[in-house]
């Protein structure tokens, strides 16, 4: 029965926290309104969702997020240097990255991570989830890059969702 009224407890919690942060108060009225939203929005939007995979290892997820944040900083410095030094001509390229995870949420997370990190933008995904087309700003070695993405991002995601 709780799943009927609370289809996604995590989403509800996030919505409540978001609401309280937005109104910047802990008054009873705001709490009640936030609770109403936290229960109402998941119920209303339930029809649009795909089955949500369970996060099996929250600690690994936290570590993954931290690693991605660190990589974003590194990526920015790298790209900035590339933009600012006119002598260094970047070699752009496309690579086709073979996907191993099949879960839709995991693929979405992976694609977003790739876009946010070193010199790569995910461009296209095959409808049958077999590969991801990535545009690379400065490509040295195609195989090494595929290997790096697999080890740094896809393997942790695979472990987090166990799929």
């Amino acid at each position, binding site marked *: 029965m709780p799943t009927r009224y609370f289809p996604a407890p995590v989403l509800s919690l996030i919505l409540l926290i978001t609401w309280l942060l937005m109104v910047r108060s802990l008054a009873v009225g705001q709490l009640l309104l936030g609770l109403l939203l936290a229960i109402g929005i998941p119920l209303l939007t339930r029809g649009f969702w795909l089955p949500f995979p369970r996060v099996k290892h929250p600690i690994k997820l936290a570590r993954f997020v931290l690693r991605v944040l660190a990589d974003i900083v590194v990526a920015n410095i790298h790209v900035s240097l590339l933009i*600012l030094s006119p002598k260094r001509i970047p070699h752009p390229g*496309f690579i*086709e990255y073979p996907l191993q995870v099949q879960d839709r949420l995991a693929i979405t997370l992976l694609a977003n991570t790739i876009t*946010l990190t070193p010199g790569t933008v995910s*461009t*296209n995904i095959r409808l049958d989830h077999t590969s991801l087309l990535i545009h690379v700003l400065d490509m040295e070695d195609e195989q090494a890059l595929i290997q790096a993405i697999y080890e740094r991002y896809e393997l942790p995601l695979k472990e987090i969702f166990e799929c």
Partner: protein
Amino acid sequence: MTLALIIEALVSLLLICGGMFAFTGSLGMLQFKDFFMRLHGPTKGTTLGIGCVLIASMIYFTATQREPHMQELLITLFLFLTAPVTGHMLAKTGLHMHLRFTTSTRGSLPELLDEDVGQSRVAKPARPKRPGSSKNRRRQLLKTRGR
């Protein structure tokens, strides 16, 4: 006293860093040679640039008003959620419009299926015929409004 100085220095540093990153991200739009390369600037540089400014804002207002300010976290969160999605949509549109990439593009562009890029090339939006015609129109509009 020293604490205030440290906070001030930290906020300044973050603001300068943020400005630098946002600037280089935008400069990339100018410097790079084709559409797909230009995508890299705004999806990354700008994200971190704004992130730095928001952290600076959080520290500043927490320190001066003596109560925690966490709203900026929300902006950061939304930014991190939307920037990659927009980047992906833009890149996908580029593929659909069969935009050309620079000749120095390496790697093997895999064969794109119809389901990936559509069956025919998507037309580019039409440009105004006379350059400056929209400017003239705006000037006329202003004139009529002035009366």
